[in-house]
């Protein structure tokens, strides 16, 4: 596959999209871990939801 005289523009575009999407996916995954960890800590400290269910119970 030859990308011609403007290969750097094509490669930069795809690389940038890959980086930004990887950051976005990473941010969502790290945020999920962070929230579930904080819920676990609250659960361990004895705080319960008004419904009486555990803080970490997702359903």
């Amino acid at each position, binding site marked *: 596959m030859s990308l011609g*005289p403007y290969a750097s*523009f094509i490669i930069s575009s795809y690389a940038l999209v890959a980086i930004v999407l990887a950051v976005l996916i990473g941010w969502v995954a790290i945020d*999920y871990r962070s929230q579930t960890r904080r*819920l676990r800590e609250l659960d361990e*400290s004895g*705080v319960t*939801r008004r419904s009486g269910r555990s803080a970490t119970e997702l*359903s």
Partner: protein
Amino acid sequence: MSIARNAVHDYQDARTLTMSLIDLANPTKFLALTARVLPWLAAITAILLAIGLYQSATAPDDYQQGATVKIMFIHVPNAWLSMFVWGVMSAASLGTLVWRHPLADVAAKSAAPIGAAFTFLALVTGSLWGRPMWGTYWEWDARLTSVLILFLMYLGLMALWRAVEDPSRAARAAAVLTLVGAINLPIIKFSVDWWNTLHQPASVLRIGGSTLDRAFLIPLLVMAVAFTLLFLTLHLAAMRNEILRRRVRSLQMLQANSRAA
């Protein structure tokens, strides 16, 4: 007799649909649904992205643009999503203001950073496509400027969400701003028809059919569907995070209150 029976069935169907929508409004039910749906959605997105990237890599060169046409396969899906995400946020804002749906502002808030990322990518990939094809990275024409305004509006909306600590109070202000900002969507879409722009007019969704050859149209559509599914996956995951964040917040307040008492 059969008409009456059909009417009863229709009523029951409508009632079932309404009940399932009410069920979904319950954040706990929504969390259970996302846990089931997310792995499937992520897997389908990954497969479609792989197919789309393969088709983009093997697509022929354009007779005028050469291989630079490959930038189109990532530029157009990002540009389409930059507007689609604002559309989703506008629908969610109506849900906040009109129906006070409990998940509407969660949906609007968690879509904003994802929409901002797609808009940023549309602008930069467009710029990298523009330099070799137009001879310039940037031109203050109607299409480019209106998309830049859309990007700034995403940033403004994210700043507004962060500025007000109570999410339910921030929600109403953000919903009004989102609906006012939606006026930019038709301006972006029709800017290429209303003004004389450097950007080309619509070539996929247009009266009279697409002007693209199938060799380019098929990879483009596959990538557009893959990116849309990627947005849906990320949006559901970000909504789940936002619900958990609010649960953390309310539990911390409960903890603080019980300590004070």
